[in-house]
């Protein structure tokens, strides 16, 4: 692939980035630290399961998810109480068993459930949204070896879009790690 015919970024055939495969967790962690220390930002590790310590090794920032979920939960509580107050005490009040129109103790269970419902839905939806999922196609899927990322292999990928990305320097960095051959991933 020569420079002259290289398609613009994002188009088919353009360089997406490099991918390197590791056999073991500790190799991956060492590699991740190296890439992190080199200052890359648009890169990722791919592992078949959660590896504790990898977040630190990669320097992944804490997600905002908990705040979103907390906010959604609060909305659920307020919404749940408001719904019950408005329907039973304002919009259509009726006398029930001599109880007050707005019977707060009896409204707690529903308010609790709406809290959980809102928060849980937000947890999943926000997680997917922040992750940019669903995204059924991705350049990495074109690589055969990458299929084992969901089985027993560990990968590091660096995107060409990274400001520090340099075809040779990045390749050298990756080759210095104890992984296998560095593979070139193209957009398709």
């Amino acid at each position, binding site marked *: 692939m020569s420079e002259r015919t290289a398609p613009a970024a994002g188009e088919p055939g353009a360089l997406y980035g490099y991918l390197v495969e590791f056999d073991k967790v500790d190799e991956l962690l060492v590699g991740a630290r190296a890439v992190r220390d080199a200052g890359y930002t648009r890169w990722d590790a791919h592992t078949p399961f959660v590896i504790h310590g990898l977040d630190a090794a990669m320097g992944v920032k804490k997600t905002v998810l908990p705040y979103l979920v907390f906010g959604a939960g609060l909305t659920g509580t307020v919404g749940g109480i408001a719904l019950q107050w408005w329907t039973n005490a304002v919009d259509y009040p*009726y*006398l*029930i*068993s*001599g*109880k*007050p129109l707005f*019977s707060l103790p*009896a409204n707690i269970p529903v308010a609790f459930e709406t809290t959980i419902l809102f928060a849980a839905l937000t947890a999943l939806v926000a997680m997917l949204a922040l992750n940019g999922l669903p995204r059924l196609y991705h350049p990495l899927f074109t690589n055969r070896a990458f299929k084992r990322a969901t089985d027993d292999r560990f990968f590091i990928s660096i995107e060409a879009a990274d400001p520090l990305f340099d075809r040779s320097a990045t390749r050298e960095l990756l080759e210095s790690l104890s992984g296998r051959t560095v593979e070139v991933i193209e957009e398709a």
Partner: protein
Amino acid sequence: MMSPATATELGIADGELVELEAGGRSVELPVCLLPGQARHSLAVALGYGRTAAGQVGNGVGVDVYPLRTLAAPHILRGVSVRGTGRSHALATTQDHFAIDTIGFAERNARAGTLVREATLDAYLADPHVIHAHDHHPPLISLWKDHEYEGEQWGMAVDLNTCIGCNACVVACQAENNIPVVGREQVLAQREMHWIRVDRYFRTDPGLTMGEVEDAAVVFQPMACVHCENAPCEQVCPVAATQHTRDGLNAMVYNRCVGTRYCSNNCPFKVRRFNFFNYHKELAETTMMQFNPEVTVRARGVMEKCTFCVQRIEAKRIAARNERRPLRDGEIVPACAQTCPTRAITFGDLNDEGSAVSRSREEPRSYATLAELNIRPRTHYLARLSNPADGGAPAHAEGHADDGAHGKESA
């Protein structure tokens, strides 16, 4: 009908088919154990087992005329009884299940607080004697109670005058288009009466069922008591039963989805459920007999006493048209109207002068299960008796007992 003691002697069980033989003729009848029936005597009902009584009457029960002779038209002597070992299910609206020992004892123990009685002497000595056994904390809710304004309907049932004739039951049935469900449904305990006459027997304490020789009967007409804090209302998810402004515990049939939760939470079990479409197979002419003022209930909805709300509204409209307030005693529910002894009083509880309000003032007035803080709008006036020997009914621990007060007596 046979007393339990006699049955024990003869080794006969409740509902067992027995062969009665007198003068060489015999009939086969199911036994219904009834405390209070004199020992070694039996009672059988005439008029059943007809063959030309039409759809309703044919083949119901057993014809006992073969036993009857000119010589002994009413009382037969020397009848022999032989158990057959087979049994027949007697459909009754109470005692759907043979009572075991603990249930029997418990019923006896409860009757005294549910249906209150006192002797005249005791009452004169202390008019509050019928409240002597109320032990409950003040009836205060954890929230601020509603103020009830305007007419507030209530009822009083005088147990002193009630003779337990069941006329109210029939009147209610006719007035409110209550379906007749038939033997099978009654056997399945699905009778539809909105008002019923609860019957307890008073026996000597400590007896088991088989030892009961003699028993007196106490009874209490029971319909929806329209509790102020009705336990049924709060549990309905669709608000199909709620309180009206004039204090009725109203049942909104077309809102009801039939969870039956209200019935479960009703301590009086006065709510009735349409398990099937009971009006499905009625003849056109039968349908025309329905009271047009009252909804015919669909399958799958709950129904119960409304205090004859159609009558209340009719009188209210009439009064409004005549631009006058409602008069006390003007509104008469079907049960009250029919009661031959005028045991039922209906009226406005917010009107201090109304008959029903005045009856509340009586020391005899009490509400069944008042200790649950449900505030029933139907109160009862305790029964006073004046036995010749001055002894008899102790109001205290009521003694009741089992038997059958059947709709169908074979």
